[in-house]
């Protein structure tokens, strides 16, 4: 199929439609509102359910209800709205019903602003509200990747009875890029509905979906079942991308759009003579810790770049387990780190390392004067 130019938010909505999403519930918030608006236009045309909720609390619980019926459903929001959804997400995860959620992150904390950010990394990969709830979290770096992730998210959510999150940022949501849209899939038939779905107890015993379990032992068993599913995900679904790691003695680690910006930085730094590679986690939960651990044994130093104060950094440190020094470069509040400044950071990382005395000639692109590294830069 020919490529078309799609805006990220709308492309994800269309991908969901083609994947057979049956219901969408959401609440407007920049920079994801185009996704909701696209659904408002297209869902009714295809006889599916679009509903603008009264709030994100409403949206996530409508989603919860729809999911309990074994219906393919989805919502989307951005950081403050996502915070409001965490109680519901914890219930959904605890009840083991599949939902798909798109989070187009913006600058925080608080109201912050509407610029791109990666400040929800922790809340999407770690806590997802209270308890040990975890989602399968994909971090797209291009509109095409976002489309493919959304398209596959429903199957994965159903397979593992879990929450699947597409964790993008304002750039992914607002950017237009050429996209090859996947084909439209036929809707689920009644027989294809899962055997736990609430569809009315006709000719069978009633089904119950709940996250409540009053005894500690009972709730522990439920948690063990959930943890077993998550272990399956960890086994099967870890994904990442590497670029120029084969000969690298320095490693950039970045996810989402920062990952793609690092590709440009990589080219600049390589031109400047640094043997740098890129490791881009595609699933940020589960985090590709094993492979990163291996790579850490090969390089002299690691630079983590994020649009936050150092969140994935913690996963990187845990995975690296001391095999290489880990530095951090973070931009905050919606400032997007650009290739030249990242390349500068690579250079200063290299300079700071004990290493083998090798010091590359600075013959590449010089860029402009490096911006002062943010105060969030941590050792």
């Amino acid at each position, binding site marked *: 199929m020919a490529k078309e130019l799609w805006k990220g938010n709308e492309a994800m909505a269309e991908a969901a439609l083609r994947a057979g999403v049956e219901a969408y519930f959401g609440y407007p918030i920049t920079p994801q509102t185009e996704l909701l608006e696209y659904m408002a236009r297209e869902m009714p045309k295809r006889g599916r359910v679009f509903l603008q909720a009264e709030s994100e609390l409403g949206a996530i619980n409508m989603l919860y209800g729809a999911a309990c019926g074994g219906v393919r459903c989805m919502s989307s929001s951005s950081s403050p709205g996502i915070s409001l959804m965490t109680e519901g997400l914890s219930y959904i995860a605890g009840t083991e019903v599949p939902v798909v959620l798109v989070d187009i992150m913006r600058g925080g904390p608080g109201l912050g602003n509407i610029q791109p950010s990666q400040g929800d990394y922790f809340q999407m990969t770690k806590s997802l509200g209270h308890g040990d709830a975890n989602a399968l979290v994909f971090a797209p770096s291009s509109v095409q990747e976002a489309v493919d992730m959304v398209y596959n998210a429903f199957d994965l959510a159903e397979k593992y009875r879990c929450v699947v999150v597409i964790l993008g940022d304002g750039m992914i949501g607002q950017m237009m890029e*050429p996209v090859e849209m996947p084909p439209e899939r036929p809707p689920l038939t009644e027989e294809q509905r899962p055997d736990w779905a609430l569809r009315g107890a006709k000719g069978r015993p009633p089904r119950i979906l709940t996250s409540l379990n009053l005894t500690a032992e009972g709730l522990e068993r439920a948690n063990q079942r959930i943890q077993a599913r998550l272990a399956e995900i960890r086994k099967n679904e870890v994904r990442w991308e590497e670029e120029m790691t084969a000969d690298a003695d320095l490693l950039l680690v970045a996810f989402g759009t920062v990952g793609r910006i690092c590709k440009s930085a990589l080219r600049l730094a390589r031109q400047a003579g640094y043997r740098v590679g890129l490791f881009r986690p595609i699933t940020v939960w589960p985090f590709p810790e094993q492979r990163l651990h291996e790579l850490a044994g090969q390089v002299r130093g690691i630079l983590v770049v994020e649009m936050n104060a150092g969140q994935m950094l913690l996963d990187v440190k845990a995975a690296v387990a001391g095999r290489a020094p880990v530095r951090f470069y973070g931009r905050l509040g919606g400032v997007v780190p650009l290739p030249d400044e990242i390349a500068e950071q690579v250079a200063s990382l290299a300079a700071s390392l004990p290493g083998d005395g090798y010091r590359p000639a600075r013959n590449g692109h010089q860029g402009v004067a490096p911006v002062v590294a943010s105060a969030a830069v941590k050792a």
Partner: protein
Amino acid sequence: MHEEIIISGFGGQGALFAGQLLAYAGMEEGKHVTWIPSYGPEMRGGTAHCTVVISDDPVGSPLVRHPSAVIALNLPSLDKYEGLVKPRGLLIYNSSLIQRPVYRTDLRVIPVPANDISVEETARVSENGMGDARLANVVTLGTLVQATGIVRLETVEAALRAHLPQRHLRWLEPNLAALRRGALVVAERVVAY
């Protein structure tokens, strides 16, 4: 080839659409492209701009700090971007609205009387014979394409045909004309380098 273009103007001046046309054309010619708007409350009455990257390689950053070319459709845009264009880069500005000179001397600068050209071209088809400035964006896009060769003018024309919203179809011809008029400007008046 790796070009990073910012098109900037008042909310209604169509900077975003001009950028999309450019991105479509790039895509048609097999390049890697990204288009990203500024978004948010500043759109309310303020300026709007978009960044288009067209490249032989996959695009890393869709945002740029130092574009290789800028189209400034109004004065605030010139104020904001003049200092940011790469050395030896291209700066096109709407001389119908901007009277001040350009200070940088290391740029290729092309003033385009975009509003005036637009008024002329729109007047031809308007009912009352009065033109307006709505095609200033396409005029300057013509200039950009002609001056840089990022894409071919015909590809932009095709993009216009394909993507001009149905309800604006009667404006197709004036758009095409505006595009060509803009392209001609390059020949006419290259002011500084």
